[in-house]
C-alpha cells in the first residue's frame, strides 16, 4: 500500500460542515484514513500550517468535549492512542564506553531485588562517577547469587559483574570477600560503596576494608566535593551511637546509610555484563551455613514479619483462615473491622491506628482497602488481594488480585501447598 496521502477536498468540506446530511459518514471515512480521528494540524498546499480547532480534543463521557492540553493527545486521536505517548520513556540513555575510573557498588539485593537503600547508594555512586562530565566514571555493581531485578540499568548501573556461583549463597562472607579481593586486583575501582545495613553490606564492607588495609568510613549520610581531600570528596558520617557527626575526607571504602543520596531517575544506563578474567580463588571457609531455622511465625512481631496473611470483613471462615496461616507459615494480620468485631487481637491490626508493616509479601483476604489500611501497607513489596468486589481500592493497590470467594480460594491454596510438600516428602 502506498504511503501517499490523497486528499478529498469535498469530503473534508462535508466533514467540516456539521449540518450536512453526510457529515457523520464523511467524518468516519476521514477518521479511518487519518489513523483514528481527524487531523487537527496539517501543512497546507502553500506551505502554511492549517489548524482545525474542531479536531482537537475528544468527547468526554458526558457528551461534553474535553481538551487535554498535557500534550498526551495529538489532534483528535482516540484516547488509547495518547496513553502510549504518556508512558513513553523520556529518560536519557547514557552509555559510558571508556570510563576514566570505576565506582564499585555491592548492593544487598534483599530478596533478589534492589532495595531502597541499594537505590540510594547507586544514586551516591552516580554522584561520584558523574562529577566531571569530561571524564565520567562508570558504576560497577558486583551482584552475588541469583537475582530477579530487571531494572539494573534504570537504577544507574553501567557494568554488572554477576557472581552466581553456589558458594556465594547464604552467609558466605569469606567466599564473597575473596571475590571482592579479586575484583580489586583486576579492576582496581577508585571507590568502594556498600550499604551500611546489618548482615549485608555492613559486615562485608568492614571485612573488605580490613583486607584492603583501608580505614573505611561507616554510616555516611552526606558527601560534598572538596579539592583538598585525596579523592576529591568530604563526607559526613554518624558516630558514637548516632550522636556524633564526623566530617572527614572520603576514603576509598565507604559504608553509607539509607537516604544518603537521591536515587537515579533521569537517566538509563547500559548495565553491560562484565566478567573477571581470572577465576576467583576458592577461599577455605571456616564458617558453615546450616540454613535457616524455622521460627514460629506467630511469635514474629507484625512490624517486621516477612509474610503476612491478613483478614478483613470478607472472611467468614475463621478456622480456615487460621489453618491457612499455619500451613503457609505466615504471620497473621487483620484490618480494623476484623479486630473491632472481636475476631482478632488488637495487636494484629494493620493500618494507621495499628501497625505499619514492612512485609515482603502481604496477602490480603477480604479486605477492601480503606485508606488507613493502605497507609499501613505502604512499605510492602508485593501485595496479593483476594476479594469479591473487583472495584475496591485494595485491588488497585495489589500486584495480583483474585476475584472470588475467599474461603474457597484459601482452601484451594492450602491444598496446593500441602500437596506440594507431600510430594517433596515422597521424593525425599
Amino acid at each position: 500500500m502506498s504511503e501517499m496521502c490523497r486528499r478529498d477536498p469535498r469530503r473534508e468540506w462535508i466533514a467540516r460542515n456539521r449540518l450536512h446530511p453526510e457529515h457523520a459518514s464523511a467524518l468516519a471515512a476521514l477518521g479511518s484514513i487519518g489513523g483514528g480521528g481527524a487531523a487537527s494540524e496539517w501543512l497546507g498546499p502553500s506551505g502554511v500550517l492549517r489548524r482545525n480547532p474542531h479536531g482537537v480534543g475528544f468527547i468526554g463521557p458526558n457528551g461534553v468535549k474535553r481538551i487535554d492540553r498535557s500534550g498526551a493527545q495529538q489532534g483528535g486521536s482516540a484516547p488509547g492512542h495518547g496513553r502510549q505517548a504518556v508512558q513513553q520513556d523520556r529518560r536519557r540513555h547514557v552509555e559510558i564506553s571508556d570510563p576514566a575510573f570505576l565506582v564499585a557498588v555491592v548492593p544487598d539485593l534483599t530478596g533478589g531485588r534492589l532495595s531502597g537503600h541499594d537505590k540510594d547508594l547507586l544514586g551516591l555512586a552516580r554522584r561520584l562517577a558523574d562529577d566531571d562530565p569530561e571524564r565520567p566514571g562508570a558504576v560497577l555493581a558486583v551482584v552475588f547469587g541469583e537475582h530477579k531485578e530487571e531494572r539494573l540499568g534504570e537504577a544507574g548501573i553501567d557494568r554488572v559483574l554477576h557472581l552466581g556461583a553456589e558458594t556465594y549463597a547464604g552467609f558466605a562472607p569469606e567466599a564473597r570477600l575473596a571475590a571482592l579481593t579479586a575484583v580489586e586486583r583486576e579492576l582496581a575501582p577508585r571507590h568502594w560503596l556498600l550499604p551500611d545495613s546489618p548482615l549485608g553490606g555492613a559486615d562485608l564492607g568492614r571485612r573488605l576494608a580490613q583486607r584492603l588495609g583501608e580505614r573505611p568510613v561507616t554510616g555516611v549520610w552526606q558527601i560534598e566535593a572538596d579539592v583538598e581531600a585525596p579523592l576529591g570528596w568530604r563526607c559526613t558520617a554518624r558516630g558514637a551511637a548516632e550522636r556524633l557527626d564526623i566530617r572527614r575526607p572520603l576514603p576509598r571504602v565507604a559504608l553509607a546509610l539509607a537516604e544518603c543520596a537521591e536515587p537515579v531517575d533521569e537517566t538509563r544506563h547500559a548495565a553491560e555484563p562484565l566478567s573477571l578474567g581470572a577465576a576467583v580463588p576458592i577461599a577455605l571457609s571456616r564458617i558453615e551455613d546450616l540454613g535457616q531455622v524455622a521460627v514460629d511465625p506467630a511469635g514474629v512481631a507484625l512490624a517486621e514479619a516477612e509474610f503476612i496473611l491478613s483478614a478483613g470483613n470478607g472472611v467468614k471462615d475463621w478456622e480456615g483462615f487460621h489453618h491457612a496461616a499455619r500451613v503457609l507459615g505466615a504471620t497473621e494480620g487483620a484490618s480494623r473491622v476484623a479486630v473491632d468485631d472481636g475476631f482478632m487481637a488488637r495487636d494484629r491490626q494493620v493500618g494507621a491506628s495499628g501497625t505499619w508493616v514492612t512485609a515482603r509479601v502481604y496477602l490480603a483476604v477480604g479486605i477492601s482497602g480503606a485508606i488507613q489500611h493502605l497507609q499501613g501497607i505502604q512499605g510492602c513489596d508485593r501485595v496479593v488481594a483476594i476479594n469479591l468486589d473487583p472495584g475496591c481500592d485494595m485491588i488497585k493497590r495489589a500486584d495480583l488480585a483474585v476475584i472470588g470467594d475467599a474461603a474457597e480460594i484459601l482452601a484451594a491454596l492450602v491444598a496446593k501447598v500441602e500437596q506440594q510438600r507431600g510430594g517433596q516428602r515422597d521424593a525425599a
Partner: protein
Amino acid sequence: MRPEQQGIEMAVLVSVGRHPITGRARRADQDARGLELALCLEGRLPGSRIGLLHAGPRSEESEAALRGYLGMAADAGTGLNTLTLLEQPEGSDAIPALADHLSAAMPQLVITGTRAELGEGSGLLPYALAERLGWPLVNGLAAVEKVENGVATLLQALPRGQRRRLQVRLPAIICVDAAAPAARQSAFGPARRGELEATPGAAELDHELAGWQVAPALKRPKRLKIIRAASARDRFKAAAAKAEGGSGQVLEGVSSEQGAEAIFTLLHEEGVLRS
C-alpha cells in the same frame, strides 16, 4: 552416652557506654549482652573461664562503668571478680593493645558488642581483630547453641525475626547486637568488691581520628517528594493522585483452583513458602 563436656576459655571485650538520655557513663548495652551470653554459656559448659577485657584510659567515671560488668557475675558463682584493664592514654588506638593481649592469652571465643557507644563507634574493632589474628568472625549473634570439639554452633539473627544456624571453627570472634538476650541486672556490692587489674597497654595514638571534625549530630533532613513534571497538569495529578497500582494483574471469573495456582506461583517466586 553423654559427650564429654569440656570448658572453654572466653574473653569478653567490654567498653564504656553512655546512657542515651542522661549521658552518664554506664556499661554499654551490647557489651553487657555479650557478657550475658558468656555467663549463660559458662552455666552450660562447666569448667569454662571468662575473662573481661577493656582497653582505655582509667578514670573515676570509666571505672564506675566498668564495675557494672563485674556486678553481673555476682550470683553466677563463677569467681569472675577481676577485669583486665589495658591502660592507655586518652585518644589511643585500642586495636593493637587488644590484639597483643588476645594473641598472648589465646582464648577460644572472643565476644564483643557490635558498635561502641562512645568515640568513632564505627564497629570496626572486631573486624580489625579478626583480620590481625586470622580468626573467623560472625556478627549479629542471637545465641550459642553448643560448643563441641572445637566447633561452635551458633544462631545468627536475620532481619524480620528469622534465625540462621552457623557452625564456626574455634577460635572465633562473635559480635552480638540487640537480638541477643537482654543483660541481667548489675549488683552493686559485687561490683564494688571486684578488682580492676590494670596493666599498661600499647599506646599508639590514633592520629587520623584526631584530624577529623567531630560535632554533635545534626538532624538529618527529611527527604522531600520531588516531582519533576513538564506541565501544570502533571504536577496537579502528582499532588492529587490517589495510590493506584495500575500495573497489577487482576484475575476475574476464574475458578478458585486457578486463583490459588496464581497466588501459589507468586508466593513460590518470592520464596516465602518454607517447606
